């Protein structure tokens, strides 16, 4: 081992062989962006040319992979993480377009405030922050100054923008989960982001009336507890998935009079293509006078998934209305809600010939979680006899009990489509 190696003179053979270092800067940025931050920063000791190549990578991701810690001490781990992020941010040189911070040992700390301030100065486009532990992290006001934001994703945060906040005018995708914000803040946020195309809301609190006013919105996914939902100006909305996690209050069904929630819901969704009605949302839609069919059919709807209690007459009415209003439906999924206590059995609802040729395009059906009660079987029968191009029906009961009886019934049903397969799937 030599004591001191003089720097090697770059000999011709080596420079010819080294094809990597001379790639254009944006290509190297692209390569390094796909490495974990740890590996990207390590390239700084590869050779002279590589000392600062990592410093311009536009994507910085700090998650569980980037810090490998052997210690069990929480504080030690946290300090290490803070150290690492501080140093990387300080040595980084150039715009940061994507920043993600999601480490399981991170508590809501003032360090994050500092980092967000730093990032807000560098035209960030995608920002993801996930706080795994602790209380809701109050997002600092510097985040609301990021004018170039295109994608914002927050987990376990509290949003309280300053009064001067005018919205993210470039924001296309918003993903808020386990967050708290006030009603007016929510509405202002949605309406002041004119380019918004995707909205995801899960487990929120602080607001309960969802008024969605977003002309460019195409994708809407929501799951939580709310009182009502209404759309305004959402003519581009194509994919909607809504889950109401609690049962509607008993009094709501009576007090709210005769205005049908179902009607209101669909009024501003003329071009809807995929609809998922989850948890108790069908109960919500069933409030009011359910029409026999929607005034304007959902001509573009080709996928429908509904969670339903087959014993509830109102829900069945709502489902029927829906099924009658989508002539181009190709794929249907009906999921039985399991925990409901049967308030009474609904019989003879789906029996009848007056709804023939209702499903001219229906090809695939999936029915799951059923227990073999009469109304469920009637429904399957109803489907089979009204779908001329049906190709496959998959039936999956909730338990093995009564599975044999179920199968016996299924065998008997007449099928309108000669190509229909009825597949019994084990629970």
């Amino acid at each position, binding site marked *: 081992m030599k004591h001191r190696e003089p720097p090697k003179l770059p000999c011709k053979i080596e420079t010819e062989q080294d094809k990597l270092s001379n790639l254009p800067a944006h290509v190297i940025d692209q390569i390094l962006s796909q490495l974990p931050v*740890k590996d990207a920063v*390590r*390239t700084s000791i590869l050779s002279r040319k590589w*000392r600062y190549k990592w410093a311009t990578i536009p994507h910085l991701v700090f998650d569980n992979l980037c810090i490998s810690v052997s210690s069990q001490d929480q504080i030690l781990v946290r300090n290490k993480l803070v150290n690492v992020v501080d140093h990387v941010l300080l040595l980084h040189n150039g715009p940061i377009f994507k920043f993600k911070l999601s480490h399981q040992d991170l508590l809501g700390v003032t360090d994050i405030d500092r980092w967000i301030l730093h990032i807000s100065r560098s035209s960030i486009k995608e920002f993801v922050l996930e706080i795994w532990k602790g209380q809701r992290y109050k997002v600092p006001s510097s985040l609301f100054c990021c004018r170039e934001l295109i994608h914002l994703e927050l987990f376990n945060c509290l949003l309280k923008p300053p009064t001067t906040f005018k919205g993210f005018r470039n924001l296309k995708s918003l993903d808020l989960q386990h967050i708290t914000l006030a009603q007016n803040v929510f509405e202002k946020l949605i309406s002041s982001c004119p380019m918004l195309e995707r909205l995801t809301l899960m487990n929120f609190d602080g607001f309960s009336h969802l008024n969605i006013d977003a002309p460019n919105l195409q994708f809407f996914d929501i799951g939580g507890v709310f009182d009502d939902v209404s759309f305004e100006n959402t003519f581009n909305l194509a994919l909607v998935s809504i889950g109401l996690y609690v049962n509607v209050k008993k009094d709501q069904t009576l007090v709210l009079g005769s205005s049908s929630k179902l009607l209101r819901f669909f009024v501003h969704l003329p071009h809807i293509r995929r609809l998922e009605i989850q948890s108790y949302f069908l109960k919500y839609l069933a409030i009011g006078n359910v029409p026999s069919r929607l005034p304007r059919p959902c001509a573009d709807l080709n996928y429908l998934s509904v969670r339903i209690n087959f014993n509830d007459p109102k829900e069945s009415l709502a489902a029927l209305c829906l099924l009658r209003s989508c002539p181009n439906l190709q794929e249907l999924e009906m999921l039985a809600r399991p925990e409901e206590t049967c308030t009474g059995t609904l019989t003879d609802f789906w029996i009848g010939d007056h709804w023939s040729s209702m499903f001219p395009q229906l090809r695939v059906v999936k029915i799951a979680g059923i227990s073999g009660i009469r109304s469920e079987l009637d429904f399957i029968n109803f489907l089979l006899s009204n779908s001329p191009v049906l190709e496959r029906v998959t039936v999956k009961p909730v338990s093995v009990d009564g599975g044999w009886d179920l199968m016996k019934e299924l065998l008997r049903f007449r099928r309108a489509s000669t190509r229909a397969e009825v597949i019994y799937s084990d629970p």
Partner: protein
Amino acid sequence: MSELNMAVIKPEEVISHVTASYRCSFSSHVLIVECFVLEEGWGRVLEMMKSYIWIETADGSLQQVEQEVAMFCPFICHEVIQKGMGSSKNHAISLPQRVNPAMLSLMLDYCRFHQVPGHSNKERKSFDEKFIRMDTKRLCELTSAADSLQLKPLVDLTSRALARIIEGKTPEEIREIFHLPDDLTEEEKLEPLKNITDDPRIRLLNRLYAKKRKELKERERIKNVEAEEERVDDRSVDDLLSFINGEDSKGIKTSKNRKKNRRKKDQLKNTSPSEVIEINEQESNGLKGSDLGETSEKQDVTDEMFASKPEFDDGDVDDEIDPALKEKIDREVEDFARRLNSDWPERMQEILSLGQDMKALHHSSNGNGTIRKYTDPEQK
């Protein structure tokens, strides 16, 4: 010819236009094509007859390439549509320098597969996986070539493959794979390591680096004309590390003192003699106990652990040494201070003699050893 200036042209139309305009310089294909155009409509041209365009690579070699395949590359597409090139040997599209014939044929294979709309995503993925199985040199060349022809999907594919190669490897391995020159100077390598794992060894190593760095600065300052004596250290990395690990506590002991004196150390010029001695004491302790190791050793150690750009001067940061160790250090420091104060004259002798021995390392031109080294010339 004027039709080529239209802003939006479908490839099929281009072919037809091009063939129509350059009929003279084309082979007999053109006449057949024209007949088809007249009789069966524009859209049919592509189905009936493949047309070719001329491409010239940087080394001067010409080849004919199916037009629809080549047009998958935005660069070629641009050349054909905007400039009307590629119709004949004389008007061949000349590719940028980074594209050699081998790379061109690879890229055309890629284009040939992907421009067909019928393949499923799965098929495309498995094609991609097989496609990038090549040695890293070619992979780099391909990336470069794809980038110069603006073929973004291929650039994404190759850069992802390169990232996968780099990921998780040690710097040595990466240098070997990509033939990178190992040309960082000793100083640059001595940047403090990012102590991500909070390893006490790394902390101490950073301190040693700091010491060595300072030493190097001194060497520059003094600027001896004679050649330095090369000192070969045969000890392995393990030896070095086992020392650091704490058999010899003296290395650790210096930490506390070092912290206190850090600022003063940096302004060596203004140190008073007693402080100088103390500093020197630490130096010599450190030096006595360990050799500061060799560059290559350090390099190995560096390569083993996390290495990165300069972060911080380790001594200045609160070290989060665990409390037990901290106590031990404190106790030893006190002991040492006591001993120092009582044994002063003997210590002086020791230092002086040490200075003589270490002359080679410090290569001080002064005969008196190390003390003089830290004295500001102005103070003399």
